[in-house]
């Protein structure tokens, strides 16, 4: 039986810097997996490379429901059934959420009546009705944006959902809501790969498997006990147990002015 997502010895880099090192992971249909890792471990890069963002050198293979991803363009990957929920969803003034979902549905060959009922159902489920006629992500709070992402996944029903830092920047109530929403997304036709930096969200949902990612590869996989270890001892505890040396990169010298312009992207 095919799995929802299969990533096989994936290596990727940007501007000559290697970020992912022969990373492999499999998400069966019906399961929710969490990938956890410290800043700079390559979590977001994994999402971007799978989604198809340009600018990365990529080796290795990835498949959604058995179909090769890397020979496809971004939009073809999405129509094949891969969908990312972004850490920072883009605000697009003038494009309304409802029409966006209708167009995306039409592009998938979903007839309008079905699309409309999916939109209405999901809007009700995720409390998105007030946002349907508003511009995409425009003027939404952090939590509302993440909810909108989950809503979109639920309308478009991909085979694989990549949730990039779906819990970041949210207060605890919003984290609970998002966790609930992820649990509601569970379906036998969907595999979820949830990327997170903090174990906080794992208090409110139970992934089928947890993977720890360090230095661009999965170094350990397990169940709830792994989350517990991270909660207690952080990534250093995992490193010590597995004998992974912490590579301390010399911090680049920053001019004071850089402090304000430097964005903490997790690449």
């Amino acid at each position, binding site marked *: 039986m095919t799995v929802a997502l299969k990533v096989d010895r994936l290596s990727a880099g940007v501007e000559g810097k290697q970020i992912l090192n022969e990373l492999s992971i499999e998400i069966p249909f019906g399961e929710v997996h969490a990938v956890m890792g410290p800043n700079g471990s390559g979590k977001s890069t994994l999402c971007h490379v799978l*989604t198809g963002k340009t600018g990365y050198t990529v080796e290795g293979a990835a498949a959604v429901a058995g179909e090769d991803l890397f020979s496809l363009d*971004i*939009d073809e990957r999405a129509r094949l059934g891969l*969908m990312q929920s972004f850490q920072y969803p*883009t605000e697009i003034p*003038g494009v309304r959420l409802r*029409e966006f979902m209708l167009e995306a549905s039409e592009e998938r060959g979903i007839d309008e009546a079905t699309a409309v009922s999916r939109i209405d159902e999901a809007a009700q489920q995720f409390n998105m009705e007030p946002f349907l006629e508003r*511009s*995409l992500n425009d003027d939404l709070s952090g939590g509302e944006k993440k909810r909108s992402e989950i809503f979109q996944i639920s309308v478009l029903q991909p085979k694989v959902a990549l949730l990039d830092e779906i819990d970041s920047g949210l207060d605890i109530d919003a984290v609970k809501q998002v966790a609930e929403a992820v649990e509601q997304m569970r379906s036998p036709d969907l595999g979820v790969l949830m990327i997170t930096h903090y174990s906080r969200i794992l208090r409110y949902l139970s992934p089928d498997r947890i993977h720890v990612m360090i230095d661009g590869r999965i170094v350990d996989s397990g169940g709830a006990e792994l989350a517990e270890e991270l909660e207690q001892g952080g990534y250093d505890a995992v490193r010590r147990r597995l004998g992974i040396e912490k590579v301390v990169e010399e911090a680049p010298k920053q001019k004071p002015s850089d402090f304000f312009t430097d964005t903490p992207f997790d690449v």
Partner: protein
Amino acid sequence: MTAFDAGLIPILTAGLPEWRKSQMAAAFPVFEALDEPTGVEEDWRYVEYDHQFSDLQAALEPGEALPDGPFLTSVGDTSGHVLIVDGHVVEASSDSLQLARLRDSEEREFGLVAPDHNKLTAAHAAFAADGLFITVPEGTFVEEPLVIEVQGSTPGVASFPHIAVDVGVNAEAQILVVYRSAEGERLLMVPNVDLNIAAGGRLRYLSVQGLDHQASNVIHQRMKLGRDASGRVGEVGLGGDFARLDLAVDLEGDGCSSEVGGLYFGEGSQTLDYRMVINHSGKNTSSDVFLKGAVEDDSQSVFTGLLRIEKDATRTSTFETNRNLVLSENAKANSVPNLEILCDDVVCGHGSSVGPLEEDHLYYMLSRGLSRVRAERLLIRGFFQEVVDRLPVAGLAEPVSAEVFRRFVHAQDEGRVA
């Protein structure tokens, strides 16, 4: 058809009231003294204007009215209809507004713009032999728009449509002007539009510039606002080889407000040219300029907007925004917002941008499975939606959106969009 020389004046003035005859006689030397714009003048920077009055003729009679065009079919009930062809008022009727033609009117100022503003305004002052004066009587509220069709019909002609609107004290009206010209014909229109809004008056005015791409249109439009008056001016710029809107808004009365909003979309080798001066002299006045445009192929757009606040215009609030999408490599958008503030008790802001469709936006949309073609179309529609929704006369949103969209899709289909 006759050339624009001294011999034309007596022909044109036959049958006109004396006051207008003497105005034209006084304006002719001004016309003769001024040079044709060459592109060196600040007012004509960025553009190539290639009409010469020596190549153009006057239309002594109106040409044939054009066949029905787009934009008007979706307008519901109206308060009247005016047709101006080659500068001549051919039809004018309204049940609620007072309409008068030049030849039946008492002496009055003919155009708020000074004749020596440039060669074209001087030509208008010297050669405009017809005109329509619209009065919205004091206290009248006219709910439906008056529709004015301004057409250029005869090839090789320069015409001078003249429209003046007087909105009385506490009166309110809506006006829709649609400019069109004969298919494939080179000609020039130099309209003059005065919008004079008395105390407490309100006017919503929308012009749709839908000329053929061979014809040119240079509009001089002035709006003057009295105490607590409000004027909303909308602009849709689609047509013309060279199309200019030279607009000045004078916020003279205390507490008055104005809004200028709209869109333009250039294709082929069009030049769409917007020159605006918003002048605040009353106290507690507010104004907003919000214009969005796109250019594709070899077309170009110009926006220069000056917000001027005079010394005693305390508590002025004024904003100006001009956003431009450049959709092909050879297209160009110039955007030059300016402020001149002589008073220190004001709120004032301006924003301007020129660039292609945002890659971030496209990436997000592609990641949802939209093809690039579809994503671009949605972005174009979204970009203009904001201004289309704010057009001051209802019923135009649909046909205007449709035309903008049609242009973009057509260019996309032909691979003309970068």
